[in-house]
Structure formats: C-alpha cells, structure tokens
C-alpha cells in the first residue's frame, strides 16, 4: 500500500463532501473531490485514485451512469468503488457493474474509515 492512498469522493452534497474529506484527511489519506459524475470520471482518469466513494443520486451524471462509463475504462476497473446510498435510492435497480460494497447513508465517520481501510487492504493483498 502507498504511504498516502489517494481517495476520490464523488458526491453532490458540498457539506457532506467537506466532512468526509475532513474525516479521511485526519488519517493518512489524500482526498480529491468531485461534485458530479462527469467531473468524477474525469478526475478518476487523471488522478488514478486507490479507492472511490460514489454517491448514487447526483445531478449531471448520476452514480449509475458514472458506473457504466467507469466500467468501460480498463485502466479504472481495478479501483474499488464504495457506493453511498440513502434510504430510498437505488431501489430495485440493478447496478451495471460490480460495486465493492454498498454503504448506507448516513455513515458514521468511524464506519467510513473502517470501510475504506478494509477495502484498501483487500485491494493491496
């Protein structure tokens, strides 16, 4: 594992992004943020993050579309994606590609860190 793994947070909620960024940066993580799927995809291609936290319901390009585009990029397919869903979203809709794990919002900071660590470890091993 890298010294400071790079994590891409894709979510349209500015406040949530801010606290997630703060939480993750309190640990040895480098955090990049994107506020919609389109931006997220561009940053993913450019920055090659080690893990992506992806909100499902977003304007411009939602998580489903993001995931579809994302799955088409062979260089990105190894990056684990943790999908964030709130209560009534994503109901009954199959995800177009394999998401490492679904995390239900609201997510407690300790849980968030634990999950990120778990999947980074899994990827590194």
């Amino acid at each position, binding site marked *: 594992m890298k010294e400071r793994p790079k994590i891409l947070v894709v979510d349209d*909620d500015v406040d*949530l992004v801010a606290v997630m960024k703060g*939480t993750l940066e309190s640990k040895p993580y480098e955090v990049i943020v994107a506020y919609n799927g389109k931006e997220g995809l561009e940053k993913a291609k450019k920055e090659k993050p080690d893990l992506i936290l992806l909100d499902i*319901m977003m304007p411009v390009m939602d998580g489903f579309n993001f995931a579809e585009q994302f799955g088409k990029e062979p260089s990105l397919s190894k990056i684990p994606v943790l999908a964030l869903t709130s*209560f*009534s979203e994503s109901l*009954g809709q199959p995800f177009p590609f394999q998401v490492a794990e679904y995390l239900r*919002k609201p997510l407690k900071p300790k849980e968030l860190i634990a999950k990120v660590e778990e999947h980074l470890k899994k990827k590194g091993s």
Partner: protein
Amino acid sequence: MVLKIDNVIPKEQPAREHTPEERALVLRLGVYINMRWLIVLMIVLATLVSSRVFHIGFSTGPVYIICGIIAAYNLGFVRQARSLQAGEVGQVIKRAQTSGNIQIVLDLVMLTILLHYTGGIENPFIFFYLAHTIAASILLPQRTAYSLATLAVLAVTLLILLEYYAVIPHVNLVGFVLDSRYKDASRVTGVLVALATLIYGCTYVITAVTGELRRRQKEMVRLRDQLLERRTMELEQASSEIVKLEDERRRFVRFLGVVAHDLQSPLVATQSFISYILDGFTGKITDGQRDLLERGVRRIDGLLTLITDLLDIPRIETGQIAREMREITLNEVVKRSLEGLDNLAQQKGIALKVELPERPLKVNGASRRLQQVLTNLVSNAINYTNEGNVLVRVTENKSDVRVEVIDSGIGILPEDMPRLFNDFFRGSNVGSKGTGLGLSISKRIVEAHGGKIWAESPDPETQKGSRFTFTIPKK
C-alpha cells in the same frame, strides 16, 4: 443479402376477400350454367319422346345440332366461371355481368332458332323465353334485364311474324297441332301478348326483389366497414390514452425519486455532522450534550423512515412492484431478512427461530419488497416482545407459500384488530414508535403480489402474543 419479396408473398393470393355481392353473383352465374346442362338434356329427351313415343313428325337433326352448339359454349362458360372465382377483387362484378349478358343473348338466339325448327308458335316450349328473362333479372342490373326482356320479345315476335308472312318456311309438328295455326292472327297475337306480358312482369318482380337484396348486401358491407372503422378508432384512442397514462406514471415516479432525494439529503447530511461530533472529531463533549445529540439522531432517523414510507405508498400504488417482479427463491429472501434482525433480537434477549423447508420455494416476486414485509413483521414482533421468542415459519401448499411470524409478546387488543392495517394506525397498547405505515405498506406489497395478509392475537397455537401470516401465490 437482399430478400426477394416476390418469393415471400404468394402472388395468386387476392389482396382481400370478395365482397358478399361478388360472391353471390358468381354463385348465381354458376347456377345458371348448371341449369343450361339440364336444359340441353331436357331438349334431347323431349325430342326423343315426342318423335319416338308420340310420333310427332318433325326433323330432329337441327335440334341435336343446336344442342351440340349450346353444350359447346356452355363448356367455355364453365371454364370462364372458374377463372372468375379466382379473379381479382373489384373486377369480378363487371366481368360476371358481361359474361351473363353474353350468355343470355346467346341463349335467346339459340332458343329462337330451336323454336323455328320445332314448330314456332305451335311449340308450348315457347314459354321458355321466361327462363332467360328470370336469369337476366337475377344476374344483371335492372336496365340490362329490361333490355334483354325486350330482346326476347322482339326475337319471338320476329320469328312468328317471319313465319306468318312466309318469309321463312314454317315447320309443322305433324300430329301435335293442326297446321295453319301459325297463320291464325288472333291466336298469334294472343300468344305474343301473353308471352310479352309474362316476360315484362317477371322482369319487374324479380329485378325489384334482387335489387333490394343487392342494396341490403351493400348496406351490410357498409355497416360492417363502418363498425370496423369505429372499433379501430376506439382502439387507437384507448392505446394512446394508455401511453399517456404510462408516461404520466413514469414522470410521477421520477418526481417521487427527486422528492425523496431532496427531502432526505439534508437530513442525512445533518446526521453525518452530528455523528462527527458524537465520534469526537470536533473535540470532547459532555454526557448532557451526547444525550441531546443522540435524541436528535433518533428523531432524524424516525423522519427518514417516515419519508421513505410516505414515498413508498405512491410508488406501490402506481404499479412499481409489478415492474420489479422476477422469479425468486423465497428461502433466500427469508434468510436475508433475518440476517439484519439477529442483532436486534440478541440485544433484547429474544430467541429468533426459523422453520424453513429445504427445497427452494419459487415465487414470482419483488425480492426487495418481500424482504421489506418480512423485516417489518419480524422487527415489530421483536419490538413488542419482552421475553420468549419469535418464530418465522414458512410452509407451502398446492397454490401458495405461507409465511407466519409468531411472537410471544404483548399481543394486539381486540378493538385494534379491524384497524391494524390502516395507514397511520398505531396500537393502543404500544408507545408511539414507528410511523404507523409499516403494516399498511406490507399489506399493499403482499396484495400487489396477489397474496393475502392477516393477523391473529393471541396466536391460536400458543395462546400467547400474536401471529401475522401472509401468502404469496406459487409460480
């Protein structure tokens, strides 16, 4: 590869069926042709009988020749009638009428010649002119029928007058009638007038009847087409309305999605912020602060559930469940639902038991929705049970799978029973936990699957707590 259309569509197939009028005309023409065979036979027989049996003297040679000619052209008409049956729609009537016209004129000529060789006015078969008149009236339009009637009257009059004035020789039927009758002016006039009257009379009556029939057939076809057109229009209208409704439904469901997102996002964010404080990311907090913040989180949790429930109802009622239905194994759904509830049961010190058949129970269902029902029933059972156990039992019969959730809890008051599945109903013997929508949503989900849900309290077997049962039809 280019597909040759000529090979795909058989050419001989008519574009559409013949109309009733066309079919009737072709049929009548056929009858007329068959009748001609019969008449040829009758002429031959009558000639044989009158010459051999009654010894009436006339030369039979010309009669047989005429019979031969009639038979020959009749063969031609038989062939023509066949081609007419396979003929192209729209041209059948015109072709059939032309053919009928030719046939009748030919027959009139033949009859007149035949009559000349068999005694002219002396021959009682002179009244056979009527046969052609009848055929013309049935087959052809009124005006043509009258023309042919006139032609018949003219032909017979011409024959008789030519014989009367000795322009052509008269053939006497020796031994049948006295010679010289054909020269009796009053008799000749009488026969001609009677025949002409009969011919015109028949034409009048028959064309009137067949004209009416033809009108009715046309009217029938018109009504049928009108009805078809109206049906098609109604169908088109109905289907466009369905498309519109489906469009509205889709827009509504999308709207609900946005509403859910926009209502829940700020709450979710707020909860995250509070949990950051609770987890100590912003420094130490006092017990009093923690208590208040935790109450806040619980209230927001309740509100999030309420929003989810409220938005679930219109989703279900607009038929969303039917869209989510697949063939699913109910065993899996039950297992998955209980996984999430084990913790809750353990916290309360309640044993959560499952009785599930080994073999897979296939049903047509929305697995996430059925999981929602089970989670609701089992978490209710756990919440309202303070000691003892909660049992989930799955059984099957011929037509459906039955799921029972049995608890040994506080039970349901008899007066609450009728309102149990109503929106916003909360039991009188429980604190105001929950939204009061759980059971009413469960009922909607089960009914959308074609199943039933009901409650019994106390459980008839254990005489304790309550039992909730729902059924899902088997696949």
